């Protein structure tokens, strides 16, 4: 009996630890809700496909210079050398250009997935990656619904490459993201998410013939800081259909059950163990 009481306390001690961790969990994803997120509105109606933003992005982030137009065949995706790409799509309304990069989700799957908090949602909205914390597990890549994070598979010191909205290098210093600052066609606009949505609605209402009536990112994946307008339905621009549910909420049920399992299961096991103890003694006697 003595032994069992002791082990029970040991088990309870361990439970306390997990409970404490469990509590943190509830506080984490909501942080920053009070403050307004910043974001970018990208307008495919205005974009002329000059790909200037690709060059500015590469320049600002120390990535190799993108290929010139004549060497490009077919549709591209961002990869470990290109945090953003602008593709040309043949659509029901003729040629339309669309820029691809991280959507900077309001509740990012990548950050919820990251076990080191290397991928993190900043208070201001951009989702950034921090090399001193990342262990290269690539769980962020598995989880991101837009397949945004890219991994340097051919490096001994591999980094995750993805758009950071130039948060640490420019936005924090009060500058605009490199792509936004240099776009000659005003296809990119930086502002608070609320301002951007108002502006996007205005454009749709004022020019209903030009715009398809939807703001990509208003609700997708639980809402994103990067918003997009288009003249055609978004699937024509290769935009992935993702659910409107926030992705981290898909694992919440599981994670929230952890503390209760840690309280209930050990108690239950100990109870069963106590009640079956009799059997064993009986069997013991039979054996010996």
């Amino acid at each position, binding site marked *: 009996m003595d*032994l*069992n009481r002791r*082990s029970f306390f*040991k*088990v309870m001690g361990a439970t306390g630890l997990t409970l404490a*961790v469990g509590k*943190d969990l509830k506080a984490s994803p909501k942080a920053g809700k009070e403050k307004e997120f910043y974001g970018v509105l990208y307008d495919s109606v205005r974009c002329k496909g000059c790909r200037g933003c690709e060059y500015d992005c590469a320049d600002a982030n120390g990535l190799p210079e993108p290929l010139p137009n004549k060497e490009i065949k077919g549709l591209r*995706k961002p*990869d470990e050398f290109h945090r953003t790409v602008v593709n040309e799509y043949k659509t029901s309304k003729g040629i339309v250009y669309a820029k691809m990069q991280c959507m900077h989700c309001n509740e990012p799957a990548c950050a*919820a*997935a*990251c*076990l*080191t*908090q*290397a991928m993190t949602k900043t208070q201001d909205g951009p989702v950034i990656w921090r*090399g*001193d*914390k*990342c*262990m*290269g*597990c*690539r*769980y962020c*890549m*598995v989880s991101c*619904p837009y*397949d945004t994070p*890219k*991994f*340097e*598979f*051919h*490096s*001994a*010191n*591999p980094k995750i490459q993805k758009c950071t909205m130039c948060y640490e290098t420019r936005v924090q210093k009060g500058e605009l993201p490199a792509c936004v600052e240099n776009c000659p066609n005003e296809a990119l606009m930086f502002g608070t998410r609320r301002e951007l949505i108002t502006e996007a609605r205005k454009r749709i209402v004022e020019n209903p013939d030009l715009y398809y009536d939807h703001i990509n990112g208003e609700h997708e994946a639980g809402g994103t800081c990067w918003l997009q307008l288009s003249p055609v339905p978004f699937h024509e621009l290769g935009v992935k259909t*993702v*659910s409107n549910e926030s*992705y981290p909420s*898909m*694992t919440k*049920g*599981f*994670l929230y059950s*952890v503390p209760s399992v840690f309280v209930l*299961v*050990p108690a239950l*096991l100990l109870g*069963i*163990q106590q009640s*079956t*103890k009799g*059997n*064993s*003694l009986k*069997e*013991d006697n039979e*054996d010996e």
Partner: protein
Amino acid sequence: MNNRAYIAADNDGQPILKFLLRELKPKGKALTPFNIISVPIILLGVVLIVYRFIYGIGSITNLSQDMPWGLWIGFDVVTGVAFAGGAYVLTFMVYILNMKKYHSIVRVTVLNGFLAYLFYAGALLLDLGRPWNVINPIIGNNFGVSSVLFLVAWHFLLYMVAQLIEFSPAIAEWLGARRARKILSGMTLAAVIFGITLSMLHQSGLGALYLMAKEKIHPLWYSEFIPIMFFVSSIFAGLSMVIFEGSVSHRIFADQISDKHQKAQAGIIHGLAKVCTGALFAYFFLQVLVFLHGKNWVYINTPMGYWFLVEMLGFVLVPMLLFFYSYRKGNIFLIRLASIVTMVGVVLNRLNVTVIGFRWDAAVHYVPSWMEIVVTLTVLFTEIWIFRWVINRMPVLRESPKWVNETKTNQVSVVDHRRA
């Protein structure tokens, strides 16, 4: 007197260092078929691993931006850990339900489980691009508590400690450390309770890892119930492994096993077959419910649908019936066959979620490179080498040394005995 002194003194007066050095030497024949196959593969694997750390993960794997996790995670970690589930199921049966019958195979199963975690979960390190930062989530400067992977990784670590404690009396017996053995076996029940709880959570957690990959996994394999599926299937995965491994070791390590154990073996296999039938039935039932709930009929008449049927009928329903039939008939051979079919089914299921059904619609589908396979085999063979080393030295399959029974004459604790 401290424990160290005891260890040294208890071991028939031999200095502990000399004893360890002697034990480190290989025993048995050098040129067995297993050695001839495994040694070259292990050597090649080590070269590949070094190469991978110099030239990056992409240099020896077929992973891509679309397929960030491949064989090393899908097979080594996710499947390997499912097979290691036998340890928590058996400790539950023996220490919690007090089913004495299975006591003689607890040690070998726990050892197997511990080594599986050490190696297969250790294979995770090979897959990390920046392994030097692995310390971050462990020492606590960056706790990503909202991450399922964080939970799983921590549970791996804690569970390995629990298993080590469960196994430690065997080490103490090997070293002849009487007092240490007493203390360690007193901790068994706590370790067992903690270990079962951890196992329930991380077995399901491995499934929960994929919850956010909603659009990437084929709908026949994705549902919000993956965690429950993974948990339930780990029960029969683990037990089938116990049945399979038991029949292999009984042949290979026959000299280690006492007559009493040999005889008990049939009864044990029967009992396990019964549990497997039940778990498989529950699993099949759950799969059917999820299938109906997800309105998945639309996918059945597609190649992936046929593949799903192969898995569900051929490798869940068939082994379930086989287990049922063979334990009714008392046919050990059929039970073993059923356990092998079940194991194939578990491998299929885990790979279907993590590799085959992951990005099933991609233009170029991922197929592991031969080098990934060699590294996987290296991990597997190294584990078997260590397993064999331990079995040949510690009282795992064979009886505990005599003094164990002598010293515990009048302390009747449930935990603290080991007998046939």
